[in-house]
């Protein structure tokens, strides 16, 4: 179990961060998902773990978006924008791990990296989830559908739209 969580946690965090645009929120979501997964599904066969973990994480992300929409609606009625624009990023916190990789080990230029990630970030949530689970996590269509709580047909539709949007953005 530890090995599984250690192997999946970084990708889970990146997914949650792309969906929420917020590192703190993403960490909370991943922590919640790991806690729920470990307490509920530890005894299930190992091969079932990836879709089960992602189902929990994606549900948490979707709930977060619902709450966010609800809150924005209320604040909007009161004429307050809320703290959506508050991006007080701590540069020290955001600095890459100095003990990690050397600059020459980084394969992609920073601008290119940001451009690609911004394109993924801009995808509608369901398209983003379908794309990340299928293409990055390598889940098959049925597992992706289970993780997203929708039909296989919906997964294909979301994925196809995501691919079209990314091609438009990245081939320009």
């Amino acid at each position: 179990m530890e090995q599984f969580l250690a192997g999946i946690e970084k990708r889970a965090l990146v997914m949650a961060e792309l969906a929420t645009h917020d590192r703190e929120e993403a960490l909370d979501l991943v922590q919640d998902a790991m806690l729920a997964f470990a307490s509920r599904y530890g005894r299930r066969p190992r091969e079932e773990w990836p879709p089960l973990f992602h189902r929990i994480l994606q549900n948490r992300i979707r709930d977060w978006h619902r709450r966010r929409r609800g809150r924005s609606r209320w604040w909007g009625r009161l004429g307050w924008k809320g703290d959506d624009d508050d991006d007080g990023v701590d540069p020290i916190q955001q600095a890459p791990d100095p003990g990690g990789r050397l600059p020459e080990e980084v394969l992609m230029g920073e601008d290119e990296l940001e451009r690609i990630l911004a394109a993924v970030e801009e995808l509608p949530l369901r398209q983003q989830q379908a794309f990340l689970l299928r293409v990055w996590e390598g889940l098959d269509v049925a597992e992706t559908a289970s993780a997203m709580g929708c039909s296989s047909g919906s997964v294909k539709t979301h994925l196809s739209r995501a691919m079209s949007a990314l091609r438009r953005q990245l081939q320009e």
Partner: protein
Amino acid sequence: MNDREAQQEIEDRVRRALDERAAGLDAATLSRLRQAREQALAGGAGRGWWQRWPAGGGLRWASAVAAGLLLVVGLVVWQQAGRQGLDGAVDDLEVLASSDDLKLYQDLDFYLWLEREGLSANGAEDRT
């Protein structure tokens, strides 16, 4: 490049970018992920019910709950203070507006004592 190849190329680029992002996470974030994993594996033993906030920023939720409690306490205190103040003012007004002699109120303790002892002011006078 045909459609299939173009799609494959996009997928590879995005996959590489995502791998880069995951591999380049800062030390503080990695440490928090490790802590979260350890807590999950310990069955949340290190995480009491008060720490199980709904996802969405523990600190923000704590602040919101604290502000809510403060508001409720403030309202209760304000209402009670207002009621007590109003009640006291009404009592004073009744005494002042009463046609009874003010001396009666000043000697109220004495008359209550007489009543407790089963004596009336007149009876007491009669026995003397």
